[in-house]
């Protein structure tokens, strides 16, 4: 199998000059989401969910967007700069952008003040209810203070008073965002930061026309709908049926409407809601979809059978922005609410944790993610790739990998070290036995009950643990939750380990590392999954504290990005070496597609991935060869 594939790849390399079949591009793109991922709000400022953003970024243009290489490119802003080392950032807007309604009627001009209005909305407690505030709080001066102010105002004088606030007055005084003129927007950052522009791809930095609020009111915008919102982006919603489909049509007033080469758009984009990933494959077969990401089972069916009609069309997708890790729960409770001392003692032991690191060859598990090419999705770093890079072009994540002495070039699962594993196991066993831990240690793991793919993966993990740790040492128990792991499992401290994925919202390692620090409320994983703050083991606390100090020290470096990244890499390597968390995979899946993924927006952070602009498509299904060529050309 593998040989065959490498042979194919080799052939492709040799024949890379091979011309593509001269087929037509797709005019109407049929794509999909699974039913659980239906859009929840049409208010671009209110949402912080990928499912919403994937839609909204096509309807409203933020200041900046990404291209297919992950670089920042202009959207609403044609240029951007900081003249003071990142403390304030100025954005120059395109001239002549229009707000239109669903019918394409021009409603207003796009002005710099729209971003100010939007920021006021986001950080006004009574308008946005506190959602989407985390990045403004972190990055925009005065945002948090203004939020507190509105909250108090609402409490003291009622919601309406707070809702009545506008971008003038108190907001202008307090918050660091200003429209110098109609086309110039200036942000004042909380501290000097070079990565401020990356955050401008994110929806909390999107615009809102005050005239829209004037038209539909605060509550009207809260309950925004395709028919009520205004558009500046490449598409307008033509029709929307919740739970069924969304149809995008071109926005005739789109700023780049006439630039059909540089800003190529589909005539229509139809997003179908489908029952499951497996259904996508069926629908692709019947021609009802233009691409289908293959669940491992679908993939196996095709790859297992060379006579399958799609055998030659299997292509590997580009990795998503998410990095997946195993998180340990340091304060595990049983179902009945009592502490699971056995696990808590075991996981506090570094040797035990490191066993997950050095003691597991996860190739088998990775096959459940990428059945053909499991090592393509190996992840040795906590941070995702391409989030940030040194001035010499070195990627930050690669620095972390290198710092551990690992490399993705290997054709084996490199982190696994049999000798070290044996030693660690002996050490863990001895130390834990002394601490009164009984073996085998049970590891409670939770998956979504309705998800067959997760079940298969969990079984693979269970088997891997059984193979490498031995059933006498540790046993993985598979449990299920109904819909929300955070609420049903994590909030109750029920699982021993979690496999979570984190994708960056902006281009700096702090976005990853700050989720893991000790003793800080904003550290999402620490507070909601690992409960490291509740740990009692002194060694563990010491390690955590050290890591936190290293992270904060790195974050304090604001004048030299290279030094900053070096320091972060050091902190992250420390974090990983002490196995506070175990990176496990990147999402690299296989698909059948008529879309050239390499032309799609590639955003290692933020939410621009699903902007349907400049996508190259073909009404013939791409073959593995085509894709190999695309990858090579990249």
């Amino acid at each position, binding site marked *: 199998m593998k040989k065959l594939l490498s042979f194919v790849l080799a052939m492709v390399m040799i024949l890379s000059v091979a011309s593509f079949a001269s087929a037509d591009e797709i005019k109407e793109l049929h794509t999909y989401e699974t039913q659980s991922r239906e859009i929840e709000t049409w208010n671009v400022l209110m949402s912080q969910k990928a499912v919403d953003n994937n839609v909204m970024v096509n309807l409203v243009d933020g200041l900046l967007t990404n291209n297919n290489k992950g670089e920042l490119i202009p959207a609403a802003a044609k240029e951007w700069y900081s003249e003071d080392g990142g403390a304030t950032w100025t954005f120059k807007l395109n001239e002549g952008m229009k707000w239109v309604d669903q019918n394409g009627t021009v409603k207003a001009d796009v002005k710099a003040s729209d971003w100010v209005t939007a920021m006021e909305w986001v950080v006004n407690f009574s308008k946005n209810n506190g959602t989407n505030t985390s990045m403004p709080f972190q990055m925009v001066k005065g945002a948090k203070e203004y939020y507190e102010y509105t909250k108090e105002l609402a409490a003291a004088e009622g919601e309406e008073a707070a809702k009545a606030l506008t971008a003038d007055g108190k907001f202008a005084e307090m918050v660091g965002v200003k429209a110098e003129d109609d086309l110039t927007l200036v942000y004042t950052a909380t501290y000097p930061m070079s990565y401020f522009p990356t955050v401008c791809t994110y929806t909390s930095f999107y615009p809102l026309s005050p005239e829209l609020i004037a038209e539909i009111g605060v509550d009207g915008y809260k309950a925004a709908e395709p028919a009520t919102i205004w558009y500046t982006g490449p598409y307008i919603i033509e029709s929307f049926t919740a739970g069924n489909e969304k149809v995008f049509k071109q926005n005739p007033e789109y700023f780049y409407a006439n630039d059909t080469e540089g800003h190529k758009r589909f005539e229509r984009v139809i997003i179908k809601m489908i029952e499951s990933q497996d259904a996508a494959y069926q629908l692709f077969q019947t021609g009802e979809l233009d691409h289908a990401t293959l669940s491992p089972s679908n993939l196996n069916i095709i790859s297992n059978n060379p006579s399958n009609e799609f055998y030659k069309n299997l292509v590997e997708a580009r990795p998503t922005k998410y990095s997946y890790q195993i998180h340990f729960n340091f304060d595990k409770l049983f179902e009945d609410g009592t502490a699971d001392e056995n696990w808590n003692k075991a996981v506090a032991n570094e040797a035990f944790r490191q066993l997950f690191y050095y003691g597991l060859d996860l190739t088998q598990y990775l096959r459940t993610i990428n059945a053909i090419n499991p090592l393509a999705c190996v992840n040795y770093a906590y941070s995702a790739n391409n989030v940030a890079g040194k001035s010499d072009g070195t990627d930050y994540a690669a620095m972390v990998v290198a710092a551990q002495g690992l490399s993705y070039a290997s054709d084996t699962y490199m982190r696994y070290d049999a000798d070290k594993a044996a030693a660690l196991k002996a050490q863990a066993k001895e130390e834990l036995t002394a601490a009164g831990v009984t073996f085998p240690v049970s590891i409670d793991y939770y998956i979504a009950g309705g998800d067959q793919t997760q079940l298969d993966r969990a079984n693979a993990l269970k088997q891997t643990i059984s193979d490498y740790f031995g059933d006498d040492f540790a046993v993985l128990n598979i*449990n299920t939750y109904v819909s929300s792991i955070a609420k049903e499992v994590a909030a109750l401290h029920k699982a021993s380990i979690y496999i979570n994925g984190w994708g960056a919202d902006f281009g700096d390692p702090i976005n990853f590392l700050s989720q893991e620090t000790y003793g800080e409320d904003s550290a999402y994983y620490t507070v909601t999954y690992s409960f490291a703050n509740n740990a009692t083991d002194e060694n563990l606390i010491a390690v955590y504290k050290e890591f936190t100090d290293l992270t904060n020290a790195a974050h304090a470096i604001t004048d030299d990005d290279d030094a900053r990244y070096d320091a972060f890499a050091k902190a992250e390597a420390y974090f990983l070496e002490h196995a506070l968390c175990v990176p496990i995979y990147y999402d690299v899946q296989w698909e059948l597609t008529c879309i050239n993924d390499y032309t799609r927006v590639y955003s290692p952070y933020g939410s621009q991935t699903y902007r349907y602009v400049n996508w190259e498509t073909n009404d013939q299904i791409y073959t593995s060869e085509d894709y190999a060529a695309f990858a090579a050309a990249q």
Partner: protein
Amino acid sequence: MSKQNKIKSVQELEQPVVDLSIDYNTVDQEPKKERPRGREYPQSRSRMPEKQLFEFAEYKASDAERTGYSNYSYWKSVWQNFLRNKPAVIMSVVFILLFIFTFVSPLISKYTVESIRIDYDRMFTSPNSEFWFGTDNMGRDYWCQVWFATRTSILLAVLVAVGEIILGTVIGLLWGYVRKLDRFFTELYNFVNNVPTIIYMTLIALMVGKSFLIMALAMIFFNWLATARNVRNLVLMYRDREYNLASRCLGTSVGSILARNILPYLISVIILRLALAIPGTIAYETTLTYLGLMDVSRPSLGILLRNARSFFLDYPYLLVFPAGIVSIITITFYLVGNAFSDACDPRNHV
């Protein structure tokens, strides 16, 4: 012509059948000792002179009372009638063998659920001498999974079915018999019945958990309705029968009346309900599994079916085995239930 006519005439004609199963006039009589009667008369006319033929025979009134002798037993007749229904008998034998086999299979199969391994090199192996039911999408032996799943599902189904029938019967009995409780149970019935149970199941799964036992209890708790209503309507039918009035007249307690006077009459319905509840539960389990409301750590038929849905076009055997077993179970209980409830009907006892 119609069945009821038949029944009516059967009843009419049948009555003496029960009354008098040994008859003086039967030709194919057993030896005398079997027939407790007082007088003797010659077996053959040729032995008797004509004169004697026209003499009065001796008459004993007390003999008439003995005519009631019968080896009829209700349950024996039920059983015999049931045995007469060949398809039901065959299917129940098949089912019993199947169920026994779920316990035996780990002993004879090459793999067990505990020992099967993921092995991508042998995924989707068609049934062969090594893997009797082939392997699944992860290269695991399907044979042992199917049998394990069958056992799990049957156990769940039996547990839930028995539980729901017991609960439904108890509620139905009280609901029908105790007039004061009628309002309460009617409201409870409306309460549970008028909202899709899936809501309650989801809420329970969210709030309490979804271990085998919890889900089994939840299913029991929300599935008793049909049985209870059925039982209740029957109780209303029997409640004011004279034999119950007789018991009340004798001061029999409500509990005894329900247990001894009414419950035995409901057996056929209860068995029928039970028989239908078992495949019903398996089907329900499939749905719940699909919705992610069941424990999935061990194979059950619901999980296998859910999984097979993605492959069955290319690898039909993955669907055929579990679906076949579900069908066997369903058809068995369908037949057995009907056969048994027919057999319980005394009108069918000849």
